[in-house]
């Protein structure tokens, strides 16, 4: 196991580099993971930073303010244009509503002429979400306005507020959610697909680099001259590469489970995802080794990891949901094993637990297995060709 040990020694020699990259990637996974878990798998607007300046201070406006802040993070700002703009540009404020002094009065006269000052600088989506929210709220109150002939009696407002709360409460039942105790497997499927990006980058940066150091003619010749057979050397090199990748993967999987709960290990869908991700790991390691044989420049391995990692992640739907991805590019990305693993993660996310098609997931795993076999075989062929050429 001389070559195996030497490979690990090389990684140990560059442990500063390896630890730095692993820590960065763990940080990325942890931040994304914590955010996804915080959203509790509800695909709604993330908790937004909202400021509501209430100039009227009535029961109605107070309830409106409470409604807008519900599920969001409240930001206190004075009614000062510059301070507000600074908050927006500091990204500590997503949406602002200024309730005017004559809010109730204008609402009763003509709701459409309400002069609510709103602002959302960062993202149009936030603005649209809040505009819909505000319109829905005012539309409900408008029915009461009509009911009381444009003059809601003061003493009725408390009762109306409790009714509005009741109306605004979500009531659409999702039967599947009631049957399933937890939907943590969906969060797990999201985080496990993010692991793929990390594996690609670390694969090239750590494994690819160490592999290319081992393939340095001086080191290689020294080992061959010392009587180490090329076949045995290749086997140990591959074994070492897969072992290191496996350890990194285990570490990342542990983090994913820490965020989503270890009970995921008992859910069949999660088990399939773990198998799928493991097969993806083998395929990616094969791909890394194959590319390292085609382009054996150890100084470029980090660049390569960066480029391949970002490109694959953006085209397969790791960073951006596939709903918005260019479909042609998505199809093109199916030449990478990552596409098939991410497809499995999407399949789990898009289906109820009892509707998950394990045959489909198995088919995707099988495709990855074939890809892994092809990459490894091609790598062996390349090595043999190079050996014959004497390089």
């Amino acid at each position, binding site marked *: 196991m001389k070559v195996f040990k030497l490979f690990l020694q090389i990684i140990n020699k*560059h442990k*500063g*580099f390896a630890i*730095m*990259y692993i820590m960065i990637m763990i*940080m*990325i996974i942890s931040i*994304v993971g914590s955010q996804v878990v915080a959203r509790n798998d509800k*695909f*709604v607007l993330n908790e937004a*930073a909202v400021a509501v300046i209430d100039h009227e201070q009535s029961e109605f406006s107070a309830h409106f303010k409470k409604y807008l802040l519900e599920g969001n*993070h409240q930001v206190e700002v004075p009614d000062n244009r510059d301070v507000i703009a*600074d908050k927006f*540009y*500091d*990204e*500590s404020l997503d949406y602002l509503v200024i309730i005017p002094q004559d809010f109730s009065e204008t609402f009763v006269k003509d709701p*459409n002429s309400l002069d*609510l000052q*709103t602002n959302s*600088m*960062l993202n*149009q989506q936030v*603005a649209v979400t809040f505009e819909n929210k*505000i*319109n*829905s709220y*005012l*539309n*409900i109150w*408008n*029915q009461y306005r*009509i*009911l009381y002939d444009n003059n809601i009696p003061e003493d009725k407002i408390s009762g109306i507020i409790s*009714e509005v709360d*009741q*109306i605004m409460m979500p*009531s*659409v*039942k*999702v039967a599947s959610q009631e049957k399933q105790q937890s939907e943590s497997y969906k969060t797990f499927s999201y985080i496990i697909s993010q692991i793929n990006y990390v594996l690609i980058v670390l694969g090239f940066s750590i494994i690819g680099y160490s592999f290319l150091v081992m393939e340095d003619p001086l080191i290689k010749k020294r080992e061959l001259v010392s009587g180490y057979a090329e076949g045995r050397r290749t086997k140990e090199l591959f074994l070492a590469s897969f072992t290191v990748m496996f350890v990194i993967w285990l570490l990342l999987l542990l983090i994913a489970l820490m965020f989503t709960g270890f009970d995921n290990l008992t859910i069949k869908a999660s088990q399939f995802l773990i198998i799928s991700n493991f097969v993806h790991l083998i395929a990616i390691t094969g791909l890394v080794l194959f590319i390292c044989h085609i382009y054996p420049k150890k*100084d470029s391995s980090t*660049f390569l990891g*960066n*480029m391949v990692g970002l*490109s694959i992640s953006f*085209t397969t739907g790791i*960073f951006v*949901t596939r*709903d*918005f*991805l*260019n479909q*042609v*590019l998505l199809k093109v990305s199916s030449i990478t094993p990552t596409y098939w693993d991410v497809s499995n993660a999407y*399949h789990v996310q*898009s*289906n*109820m637990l009892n*509707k998950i098609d394990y045959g489909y997931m198995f088919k995707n795993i099988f495709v990855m297995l074939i890809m892994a076999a092809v990459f490894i075989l091609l790598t062996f062929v390349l090595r043999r060709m190079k050996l014959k050429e004497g390089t």
Partner: protein
Amino acid sequence: MFKHLLKYSSKVYFYNKANMMWNFIFPFVFISVFFLALGNFKDPTAEFSKDPIKLAIIASDQQEADNLTEFLGYFGEEGIAEQAKSTETSSDDVFFKYQLTNAEGADQLLEDQAVQAIVKASNPIEILAYNDLSKVKSSLLNQFLESYESICKTTTVIGDRYINEKLSNPENLSNSQLNKQDINTIIEQTKMDLKAKHEDTIDIFSDKSESTELSTSPLLIYFFACLAYIAFYPLNTGVTTLTEITANQTGVGLRNSATPISKTKMFFAVFIPRWIIHCIFTLAIYLYINLLGINLGNNYLQIIVLLILGTTSAILTGTAIGALFNFNTGLKMGISIALPLVFSFASGMMYNGMPRIIAQYIPWFNKMNPIGIISKGLYMLYSDPTFTRFNQQIFSLLIIIGIMFILTIFGLRRNSYESI
């Protein structure tokens, strides 16, 4: 001599194939992939219309089912037939395709993947099952159904309130000659009236639809971060600049150090051509983004200044890393690639909610993140009519450039070798 060094280092830089590949071809490839991948962000509604959510509606109560289909009719079309499936829908606002059916039929449709969800028109409404429904689509479906529920609940609650108040009023009661059947008729009529009134919906933002020009689409936010990443990408060039003049880093560095030229002079001779090349290249990427049809705003001069300062800060950060730390070149290169990646992640290139999370938990990081500063600068130029805040970003970049330059010169002068 200085001129000769300038010419020589430019040639060396251009003849290095790896430099060409990673510093010049990669950014173009990356921007292209980025653009192609996110192309559909421009108009997500149109994308939904190409592939609307297909629903099977089961009626537990015919009236409920009619109400629901009528509501869905405003946002979609009835029928999920194959020919409708294969052709793109004519309207841009078709979010749903639906079919009223019975429980067995719905199950079969779901099994055959002809529909993505089974919705039971009841009170409250129920999503009985779904299949192949992405998170975005399930969220959209949920929002529409919640809107419908809210309308139904409002009608019921206000109807009940109306009746209660009429009946609880002693005057009304004493004068009332109505029997139970009449009261029920009035209740139903009132509900119908209220429902009709619902069509006069309030939209206080209808006039503002044109005034949201200050807000930006997610596509642009991604592109701000992406262009900022590309501008800051040549960090590695700064690192390699130093390795070529530092004796204990590379053979070239050793050779250069042996020449009778001051280290500072040598530094500028290697730095200036690379800085010029990368600034031009960053501007070429900016031009390329414009050619792709991404409009980052009309303040061209300010954008150019911002990008040049961004690239300068990147190269000088690289030279500072190269000058201050004595670890091996491989690790320095690793850092030079990892740093832009971390900065871009924090600026929202991979996850667009990231800048706010950073602002909430580690606000100081946002202030010293050069990619964040460039990205924010681009955003301010796009949305802020005044240049006050943009100037603050420029000032922040100038501070970073100043600090990195001082650190580089300090690091260069500090070096002494025990053995080379």
